[in-house]
């Protein structure tokens, strides 16, 4: 069976490997231009002292910016806030999302309606989510949560100003739980039912089935949820901008970089060195994450 003889050759000049590469190149070039070039420029900026507004000369200062960020206590605080605003929401959303998915993975009256309600937070504009929670639920005077607190005999709490990290964390969990739920639901749906049925016939209880069969089947899905959740949550800006506008306990690293540069500081050299640190931290996370991905892709063979 030799088709090459009769197959018309469209571009005889192109070798086979280049014909394969060609469809990939536009996307690849586009991504390199949009991500690698700015990144290289960032590294260059971070080695300079450069105030953009009012315009000043750009001076090469070597590693001075990195030296000064080591002594910047605000930056340390921002890192700590970033860690808390990433780790806790990811874990919270994953646990709740898995629980909700298990609740939905059974027949009951109105399942479609409940699923629709549970998915909705993920579809909302993040800015809207932040504003609505701040002004209608967390509000010290008119907030729905404080209404409950007061009726239970407690004193109202100014959530956003007194507990900024917790408030933003709750909002992030609320918005990202549906995302985790979707991924886990997808996992549950792809679980082969015959194995579960066989285990039931063998007399396995629901908890034994969950621990030994479902959880191990869900593992790659849970890992994927952690991976994607972390990528997005480490960069959170919108909710912080509209809920607190920064401040102790709510300025994470992205927000701090923004404040020191286009947010009013205009010190592009210094701010670039901060963002390079964010990139390095992300690379560490990404290396771990890519290892997860590579186990997902392992065993996949394409001719």
């Amino acid at each position, binding site marked *: 069976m030799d088709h090459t003889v009769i197959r018309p050759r469209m571009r005889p000049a192109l070798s086979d490997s280049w014909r394969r590469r060609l469809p990939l190149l536009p996307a690849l070039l586009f991504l390199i231009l949009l991500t690698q070039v700015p990144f290289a420029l960032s590294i260059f900026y971070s080695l300079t002292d450069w105030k953009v507004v009012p315009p000043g000369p750009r001076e090469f200062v070597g590693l001075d910016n990195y030296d000064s960020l080591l002594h910047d206590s605000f930056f340390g605080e921002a890192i700590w806030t970033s860690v808390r605003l990433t780790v806790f929401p990811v874990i919270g959303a994953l646990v709740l999302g898995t629980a909700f998915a298990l609740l939905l993975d059974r027949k009951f009256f109105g399942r479609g309606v409940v699923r629709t309600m549970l998915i909705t937070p993920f579809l909302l*504009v993040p800015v809207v989510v932040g504003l*609505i929670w701040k002004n209608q639920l967390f509000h010290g005077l008119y907030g729905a949560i404080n209404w409950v607190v007061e009726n239970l005999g407690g004193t109202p709490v100014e959530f956003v100003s007194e507990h900024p990290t917790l408030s933003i964390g709750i909002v992030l969990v609320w918005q990202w739980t549906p995302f985790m739920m979707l991924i886990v639901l997808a996992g549950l749906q792809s679980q082969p039912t015959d194995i579960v049925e066989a285990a039931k016939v063998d007399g396995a209880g629901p908890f034994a089935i969950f621990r030994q069969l479902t959880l191990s089947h869900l593992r790659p899905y849970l890992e994927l949820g952690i991976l994607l959740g972390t990528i997005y949550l480490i960069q959170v800006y919108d909710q912080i901008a509209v809920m607190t506008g920064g401040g102790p306990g709510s300025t994470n690293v992205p927000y701090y970089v*923004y404040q020191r540069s286009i947010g009013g500081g205009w010190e592009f050299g210094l701010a670039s060195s901060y963002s390079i640190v964010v990139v390095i931290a992300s690379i560490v996370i990404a290396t771990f994450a890519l290892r997860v991905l590579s186990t997902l892709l392992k065993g996949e063979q394409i001719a």
Partner: protein
Amino acid sequence: MSAADVTVAVGERRWVNRALGALAWLVGLLVFFPVFWMVLNSFKSEQDANTSPKLFFDPTLDRYREVTESAGGVLSFGEAFTNSAVIVLLSTLIVLALAIPAAYALAIRPVRRWRDVLFFIISTKFLPVVAAILPIWILARNLDLLNTQLVLVILYAGINLPLAVWMLRSFFREIPRELIEAAEIDGAGLRGQLSSVILPLAAPGIAATALLCVIFAWNEYFYAVQLNPAEGSTVPIWVTTNVSTRGEFLAKLSAASVLACIPVVLAGWIAQKRMIRGLAMGAIK
């Protein structure tokens, strides 16, 4: 097990099932409450909204009228909506135009070391937006692209492209190879294979991917507010203009929020089952 035991066990299971169903409803209503509250507040007068929570009131559409009527000099609802629609649609089209051939080159006629290429594409997603915003701001300013729709179209295509390539690759792998080979034997090139076999078969997957791109682009705020705060602004920015530091704004903000969220929420509701199925077959395999 005796017959009586079985009856007890079945009765017990039915009871557990009902309890879990009720729990699911409770959880659903609790999670949905903030959305319900937002919609309810959007039909209130400011006096009714700015008081301790009220369930019963005289519903009015006045807040919707207020936020949609255009005021001179300020970003109007109509402008923001049109801008968003144009930017989101154009960027999604660019994403598909770039991602479909790329996914083909990763899934159907894979290039050598396709795993490394895929890793690189996904890894660009790990690059924090803040790390890129300063050089992009400078470049946009030097190219006179600040405050244009074009800069957002390009950037939104950039943020969605990795995810789209990844998802489409998975969908393309589901296509039976015999069909593609048959088309090839008939002399179809890349374009012919795409239009005759791949696109029709992967259409549901492409739709799910496009929808996700639309959601992320419609909701994006950081780039929009940094690079495009003036004319050509998008819906999320318009929402924030309804927050005032003086006077009461809760009901107005709610109405604006409902309008801003409706397109994406409706699309998501309609496509939810397809999205789950897409994730089930696309995300892991």
